[in-house]
């Protein structure tokens, strides 16, 4: 989303990240690293407008980014019927299945209607892209 591409937004995220890292500087083990990731995700999502950011903030006691690598997509390539765009088509079984998978991936979207899941996903993807870009550039800054 355009919001995540503004430099101001990135700056805000950077400040939050720095504060979160400062606050969580104790310990260097694996879980703490993930916690740092979660904190920066929290810092990122503190805008509070989207559902997934609220789910991260107010969710279970350990807000962690869900890494659903196990949610495999059943691909039946030989039997793939020609997919039509959903012009007048009711949601097929495959589409519904993928929507369910997607709602599991995005935090806080478990029981949402399809439109909300899609909008939350869009926001989430934009936020993640910004975050990955920032982390990459930080990595470069230190690697030089």
């Amino acid at each position, binding site marked *: *989303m*355009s*919001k995540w*591409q503004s*430099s*101001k937004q990135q700056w*805000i995220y*950077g400040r*939050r990240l*720095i504060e979160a*890292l*400062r606050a969580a500087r104790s310990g260097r083990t*694996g879980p703490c*690293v*993930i916690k740092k*990731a979660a904190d920066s*995700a929290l810092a990122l999502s*503190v805008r*509070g*407008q*989207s559902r997934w950011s*609220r789910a991260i903030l*107010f969710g279970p006691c350990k807000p962690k*980014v*869900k*890494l659903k*690598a196990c*949610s495999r*997509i059943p*691909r039946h390539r030989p039997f793939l019927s*020609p*997919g*039509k*765009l*959903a012009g007048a088509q009711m949601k097929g079984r495959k*589409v519904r299945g*993928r929507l369910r998978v997607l709602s599991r*991936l995005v935090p*806080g979207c478990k029981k*949402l209607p399809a*439109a909300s899941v*899609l*909008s939350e996903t*869009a*926001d989430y*993807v934009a936020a993640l*892209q*910004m975050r*990955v*870009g*920032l*982390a*990459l*550039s*930080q*990595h*470069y*800054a*230190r690697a*030089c």
Partner: protein
Amino acid sequence: MEPARCSGAGSGNSGTYATEITETLRLEEIESLMDVNVIHQGFEGSSPENAGGSSFTALLGLHPSQAVELLHELDPSSSGGFRLGDPKAIHFPLSCSPTFPSNAALIERATRFSVFAAAEESPEGSSAFPSNSDGDHSPNPKSDPPDSDLKPQRLAKRKETDKSSKAKTPSKKGKSTAGDDGEGSPANPDDDKLPYVHVRARRGQATDSHSLAERARREKINARMKLLQELVPGCSKISGTALVLDEIINHVQLLQRQVEILSMRLAAVNPRIDFTGLDNLLSAECGRVTASGHGPGWVDGSCNGVIRRSHHYDNQQQIWHVDLQQQETAGWERDETQQLLHHHVFISGSSSGSPPGTSLFGYDSAASALPLSTQLKSEM
């Protein structure tokens, strides 16, 4: 907060500030729950420049001028800050002038509102959440009442528009000319008493309330799918909802893994960095570093300003170099990150589409680079 809101609404680009008001309101509620003042400062600092607006509305496939026009319309209704408590506030512009012929242009916007207003349901339904919950409940029970409030309303509107649409020559949704709407208006002046969202039936389609509601819902979903397709690289060529969703799922998983790996690497490299000087350094130099790829010389040069703040910095710099050599994350993680980095270097050297202005972490080049990098990764 009231004067700040109204001043924000009055000055400059009213379209974007209307949505900022919404953001202010939502942030306030979250503040009351979280009791974090820093957010407020951050938002205050960002409000004069925020041109992004509410995320869903800006990318519903409307042109920016149309979106601004729509938001400009919302401005009189939202300047009082009513958007949160009143989901009907978005319909005020429709009802503010009861006679249609004088506001033929209003109808055009009203038809656009059919997508826009429907999209407003979820942000507003979700905006009810912070005010209601204690933080443990899922947002769904809270957002359901606003949604269910809106739905019978919209169905009632559909019935009203049915009569108008059957009586008129069928016109395409959203593109009806002012003339047609002008013809329709004197026949049904009662439609405007209540805030309605008008959906035009297309030629040859059923016009009962259920199918209209379904069609509106489908249009909403298709609009969001298109939005997602634009966001995820490589999805524009794919036709078919299921395959596009496949790509989106893959992309989300990829991004999550990248985030995990990168944050682990960064945390491994920097065990105890003092960040007081680091943010200055990053803000000043990172853009140029990622673009030009200079060696450690620039770091030494810019350290002079930084060293005043933190004495550990140059020592830590050596620590970084040592750590980079020593701490190697094993196996595939390292390979994957190296691939990421190599792609990024390759693309940032060749990318030219970065928008003007320096952002904090040189993200402008990274933003254009990153979709390409992930696309390369997916193509590999």
